[in-house]
């Protein structure tokens, strides 16, 4: 386009004022880089949220026990049973035909130890299906089996961090760990797993890497429903049968059946209406959350796009401003060129090339700057972690652990927009230059 000479000349003219050109480029650089950054961070946040929700399983419905508010819990004995019961489990399992599996889960905070090493974590009682429904991946050994469930065996499966803390590099399979008065034989080890989302008020975020899984039948037998916890000198007890029931909805021909999941969720809510008065359960439908998160993501994108568009506009105004100044400054040169034969469009071309060079260089460096997003965010996080650990502890998970996700399409879009900005904001100054009267321009002092 336009011929190489015009481009060389444009670059030469820009180099006459390196500082000015640099500052103009900076405007576009910031515009383009911010487009890529904002989109990448937005994408990172929403992807993480989606991942966490998907971690719960899109085809599942979760029913969790919720501890009722304290004032409702002041019976004579000080301990009131609450939450899901084994009857609820049977009710859901037997009466709702679209429920494929109902997996009971019971969680207790316990100290695990092996010899002198000990750590706190969650003791999770569950059934063999739990692994599949929550997508646990086995590193070695096997997950709990049906035989172990029905035999109420003292076996356990360790999550990644527990394994590392208690066993280091040793192979834990076949060895025993100690939980309170009981010993459990390790039969399997899990791969590390990402935490799930903290979703509104209905569900707190869950960390899975400090879990020890045992058959729920064993837990009922060894621990029972009543749990005493020592807290600042006094004991606090609670009676709870199940912490959670994860219900898997039947799939139609292997695909996720969205209406069926939503309809079943309604039936489940209705079936458990006897808990409404005590408000001691909550029903979580990951699919609904997923829909919400998609909409939030879309809004986020529009919002980010708007901010980025404004920054590019500002960059464009910067270009126009500089080019108008340049035209005024180079009136004499324009006059000379016109006098020795330049057509109006030659002049337009000359100035347009300069703005395009500015915006393209700004765009390209902006893309490079945008690609630095991931390491830069890591660096920032590292810096904050080292110099102000309290600040980072205060941030919510979703921001603390965000990994920007560069959206490929944002790169060409940002670049094209920057070039368009260069042309659009360059056209007016270029036309102003071309429409100068050559006779007047030659008289100019510059």
């Amino acid at each position, binding site marked *: 386009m336009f011929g190489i*000479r015009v481009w060389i000349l444009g670059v030469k003219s820009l180099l006459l004022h390196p500082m000015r050109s640099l500052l103009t480029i900076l405007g576009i650089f910031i515009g383009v880089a911010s487009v890529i950054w904002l989109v990448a961070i937005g994408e990172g946040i929403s992807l993480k949220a989606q991942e966490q929700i998907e971690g719960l399983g899109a085809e599942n419905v979760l029913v969790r026990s919720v501890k009722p508010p304290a004032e409702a819990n002041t019976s004579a004995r000080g301990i009131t049973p609450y939450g899901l019961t084994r009857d609820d489990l049977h009710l859901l399992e037997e009466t709702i035909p679209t429920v494929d599996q109902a997996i009971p889960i019971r969680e207790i905070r316990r100290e695990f130890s092996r010899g002198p090493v000990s750590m706190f974590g969650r003791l999770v009682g569950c059934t063999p299906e739990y692994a599949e429904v929550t997508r646990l991946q086995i590193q070695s050994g096997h997950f709990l089996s049906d035989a172990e469930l029905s035999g109420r065996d003292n076996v356990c499966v360790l999550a990644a961090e527990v394994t590392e803390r208690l066993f280091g590099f040793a192979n834990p399979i076949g060895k025993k760990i100690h939980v309170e008065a009981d010993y459990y034989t390790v039969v399997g080890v899990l791969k590390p797993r990402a935490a799930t989302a903290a979703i509104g008020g209905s569900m707190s975020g869950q960390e899975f890497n400090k879990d020890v899984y045992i058959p729920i039948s064993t837990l009922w037998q060894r621990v029972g429903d009543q749990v005493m916890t020592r807290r600042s000198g006094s004991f606090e007890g609670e009676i709870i049968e199940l912490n959670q029931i994860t219900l898997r909805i039947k799939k139609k021909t292997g695909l996720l059946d969205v209406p069926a999941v939503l309809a079943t969720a309604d039936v489940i809510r209705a079936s458990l209406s006897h808990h409404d008065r005590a408000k001691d359960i909550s029903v979580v439908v990951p699919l609904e959350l997923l829909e919400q998160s998609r909409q939030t993501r879309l809004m986020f994108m529009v919002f980010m796009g708007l901010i980025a568009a404004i920054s590019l506009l500002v960059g464009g105004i910067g270009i126009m401003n500089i080019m108008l100044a340049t035209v005024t400054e180079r009136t004499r040169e324009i006059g000379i060129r*016109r*006098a*020795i034969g330049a*057509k109006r469009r030659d002049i337009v071309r000359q100035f347009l090339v300069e703005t395009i060079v500015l915006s393209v260089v700004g765009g390209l460096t902006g893309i490079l700057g945008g690609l630095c997003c991931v390491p830069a965010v890591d660096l920032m996080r590292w810096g904050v972690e080292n110099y102000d650990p309290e600040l980072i502890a205060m941030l919510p998970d979703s921001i603390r652990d965000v990994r920007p996700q560069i959206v490929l399409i944002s790169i060409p879009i940002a670049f094209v927009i920057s070039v368009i900005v260069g042309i659009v904001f360059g056209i007016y100054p270029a036309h102003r230059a071309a429409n100068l009267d050559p006779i007047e321009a030659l008289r100019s002092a510059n």
Partner: protein
Amino acid sequence: MKFAVQVEDLKKIYHLKGETVYALRGVTFNVPEGDYVAIMGTSGSGKSTLLNLLGCLDRPSHGSILLGGSDTSKLSDDELSYLRASRVGIIFQAYNLIQQLTVLENIEVPLYYRGKVSPEDRRRCKELALMVGLQGRLDHRPMQLSGGQQQRVAVARSLINNPDYILADEPTGNLDSKTTEEILSLFERLNNEGRTIILVTHEDDVSEHARRVMRLSDGELAEDRLIVNRRSALATSAS
């Protein structure tokens, strides 16, 4: 006789804030090929207006300018630009070189606006630069040259497209007497080689180097005579 330019009843009227200014009130003359004309006149005589018209920088209000037989008065802006690039060579009092270009690049500029630049053209640029006496200065920028040298660059630039005539607007106005002689002797040499030169000046010393003097007064041609005792710069200057 072939004419480089023919001017017929040329009028130029400006309308400034309701006031009508008659810059040229009907000027007629011919410049034959190979002529060397000095146009003289006081300020306000219409000298600059005539120069702008001859330089194809402006269009007349009335009358015609025949350049190589075709009328320029009805041409579009683009067509006038093309004529400036290809048929007319303009030299200014203030040299008017482009500061960021080298000597050689400055000479080349009109070529781009005329069309493609061939290696042949490049060679001609160098030849012209040498011809006007810019040996060893080809890669200098105008800032690094003296006034006389800058004007030589301008002369070379005006010649690059082999114009029908060279139009020089006070070419020695910014130069000292010695450099003036040098530039005028360059003109004389070009004229002896057959180039047509139209020179605008208000100095008699300069106009006496031409073959013919035209004097403008109040927008009219007051005098048009051949110079009898022509001064030769070639005789006094060794360049």
